[in-house]
């Protein structure tokens, strides 16, 4: 057994190395700002990251006193004002109207840090089939919807099935990414299997100007270099309502 003593150094190394390291908390600002054409007000939410092990009531989030302003292609500047209803919620002034297929520079200044991002708004998105309030039967083949979007970018189409007034299975049913500006979208019948039969279906065209939450599908983000995470981008969408017979 004496000859086995040379194993000893390895065992020492082994036991020394069996500790686990925990990386400390990382602070970032969290910006949610999505430009939407044809909206009277543009909305933004400014927040920060929080420790996973610290207690937070639902009302104890949001960052006040941020300065948000948008610069368009004509160098006109539009500002956001803080809402009274919710800490960290900001709305644009009513004079600011987002146009399709335009570029904007988004600036957020918070506690001495400035976050800037150029945003390209997609072109007009139009669903042209089926007509609104189409009636489909569960026994029918899967519903087919066509739409077009001019000057949309890669990774731009996300399809959400909505019940009228509330979302339906948008968490469990993954959004589908459709690449072409002219395409067919097939909906499985499974989408329409619920007690309610009146559905609103939205087709959203997102641009690719995503600041940090690049992976929206699984709703996680990875902390990279920078001062902020979140979603700074633009979106266009169209909706249809569908009546489904049992």
């Amino acid at each position: 057994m004496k000859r086995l003593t040379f194993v000893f150094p390895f065992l020492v190394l082994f036991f020394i190395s069996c500790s686990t390291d925990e990386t400390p908390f990382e602070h970032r600002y969290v910006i949610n700002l999505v430009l939407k054409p044809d909206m009277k007000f543009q909305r933004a939410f400014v927040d920060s990251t929080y420790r996973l092990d610290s207690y937070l009531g639902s009302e104890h989030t949001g960052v006040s006193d941020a300065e948000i302003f948008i610069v368009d292609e004509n160098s006109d500047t539009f500002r956001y004002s803080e809402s009274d209803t919710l800490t960290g919620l900001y709305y644009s002034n009513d004079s600011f109207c987002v146009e399709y297929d335009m570029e904007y520079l988004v600036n957020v200044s918070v506690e001495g840090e400035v976050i800037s991002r150029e945003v390209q708004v997609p072109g007009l998105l139009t669903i042209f089939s089926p007509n609104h309030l189409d009636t489909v039967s569960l026994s029918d083949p899967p519903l087919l919807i066509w739409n077009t979007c001019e000057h949309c970018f890669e990774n731009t189409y996300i399809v959400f099935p909505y019940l009228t007034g509330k979302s339906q299975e948008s968490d469990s049913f993954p959004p589908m990414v459709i690449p072409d500006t002219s395409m067919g979208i097939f909906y499985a019948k499974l989408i329409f299997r619920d007690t309610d039969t009146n559905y609103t279906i939205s087709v959203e065209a997102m641009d690719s100007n995503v600041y940090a939450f690049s992976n929206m599908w699984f709703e996680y983000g990875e902390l990279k270099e920078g001062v902020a995470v979140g979603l700074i981008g633009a979106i266009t969408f169209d909706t249809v309502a569908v009546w489904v017979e049992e």
Partner: protein
Amino acid sequence: MFLCSFYLMLLVGKYNVLTGEIYDAATKEPLQMVNIVIVGTETGTVTDDKGYYSLIMSDSLGEFRVRYSMMGYGQVVKDIKFSGKDYLSVDIAMKMEPLKLQGILVSAKKKKFRSSASITPSSLSQEDLMMLPSFVEGDLMRTIEALPGVTKSSDFSTSVSVRGGSPDQNRVLIDDVPLLNPFHLFGLVSAFNSNAIKSAELYSSGVPVRHDASLSSVLDIKTKGVGREIEDLSGVASLSLLSGGLTMGSKIPSLNSNFLLSVRRTYADKLLALFGYDLPYYFYDGYFHWETDIKDWSLVLSGYTGKDFLDIRDEDDESIKIIAFDWGNDVLALNLFHSNAQEDLFHIFAGYSNHDFFLRALDTVFITDGNIDVGTIGAEYTKNFKRNEITVGLEEYYRPFEYNVNFQMGFAYSYEDIWSNRISMYIEDKFGLSDYLIISGGIALTHYYSESKEFDQENSDFFRAYRLSAKYFFNDFRAVTFSFGNFHQYIVPGGALIDMGVDIPIYYWIPLGGEYNPEEAQHFNLGFEGWLREDLYFSLEGYCRRYNRLLNMKDMEDIQISTEKEYYETMLEEGNGKAYGIDFLLKKEIGNLRGWLSYSFLKSDVVFGEETYPTDWDRNHNLHLTLLALLGKRYEAGIQVAFCTGNPYTTDLARCRYRKELMPYGEDEAEWIQLLGDKNQVRYPPYVRLDASLGRSFYFGNNELDVKLSVYNVLDSKNVFMYYYDYDEEPPIKKPFNMLPRIPSIEFIYKF
């Protein structure tokens, strides 16, 4: 027959008869084919299948010496004196003797030790597989994890990493035929029926140059049929909690050949159906091996098939398929050997294999269908000189690929005209410069051609692989080794099941072409091996690996999917990596107490983009102890202990609220999102596991029933697979999701 002879001789009255029973001293089992010889004469006999013997001799021999001997047992010499009697019964208990067993096991290993220029590969025997504790049933890949240099990322998968390489970088050969994705049950069990396996060798270094098709290792599995070892009709029927199987083989004298056939299938779906339950999953596998001699040629025909089926349907409407998923391998191989008095060996081989993969989700929402065919043909010639052995070979792999992926929301892509062709010409020379030094060198020149008409791509390039190894013998029991080699891999895994948190080794293999060059690695190894005692083998090897080019599937959001061509061209990212470490093995292969102790130190990092991070299987320290004990009265026991550094993982650094709109223009709701830190920068707690088994053999004439009780994870160690946060509490509670708990199982193995 003995009794008849005995009485006949007694009647004649001119002879004396020595008779008796010979049995194993430890197990009390009768021993057949024991040699019994009267010393100084040519008179002798052997025991029958019940351990009895009867020796008839002239009555002039009143006093003499008898030697009882059998390979693997200590010789017994007995002085016999009839003392006026004409009949004497002498029973003998023979003890297994390691010093003699080395004649079989150790000398085979020593022969390999003396003849190879690199370190002896780790090996497992059939006995190891059958006697070691099982996870539900004996599994080669789960036993391999106890060998040095082998790590894994979780208990949920039998895929392993060898010396820091990813699981896809291990080439698995069954009787020299490569298998892709050799796993069942999404990787939980391997595709090999242990009852059909004779041995397995894991080449983590010293990989021959002819295997220049994987970056990390070669697992060389030989089935029982190889080498015409099967004599009479014999077989094994097995039943475990997972599957039932039958393996049988026989010699066919009329055809001058022998065969082995092995089949296995899960039965839970059939069993539950009797009680009205529907289990939408099953797998099966089968293997056959047929060898025959035609004049100076040996012909070997072998085949393998294995399939998994998962079919989950809607409870309300069974016509709707929620998930339909099946995958598997079909292999057919023909080998021809011609040997001339062991001076040379000519080997011609041809093979065909097919790997298919079909996944259909949510009825018509998502369909993917993949097929890889591989046609192989080649020839190899080995010539032995006095101190020199030269091998030259030529082989060609033709691989047409076919993929059809269909998101039926409007996006579909298919690759139907991709194919690749790889022709390799190689030469290896192993020569002994003296009794103390063996040097081996090899070079392979490979022409790789890939073509895709759809993508308008055509690639043609040459790649060279080198091997150099040397072994210096201090004496017959100690040697140092050095080896170097560069390696290539021409297909890489991709597809939807990559990087889902758990390694599901059902890869969707992608041929490399266009801008993608084959993956490349270099291995440097420095080793020391030999015997501490006659029956105690050890090896210590340090290694360093450089991965000059690695290809990894990108995250989906980084892949451009407008067209098939764009998808293909953007789906992989190129990186590099390195791995280094030390492997130590101490193994006792013979005796009533056997087993091995292995320790591995490993550091394995990869670089993709600007990120450098440890691989998922980067367990820095790995300690495994495996013991088998032959207990008296037909019992045997085994334990397996694993104590390893925890795997690296990506931790959550913070949380934030993501405000999701319930519908466009509508209200929103806030959800917590966890934010991840840098990849794989922290580790799970150390991994600890103890498995144990106890087996008992029952004998029915020449047949044997083995019953084995196994408990996987006896201590029910809570080895963490992943962490998650329970947001029903505030602040959220970090909870572990553990790997496999304590799992008892029972196996019945009937040998006939």
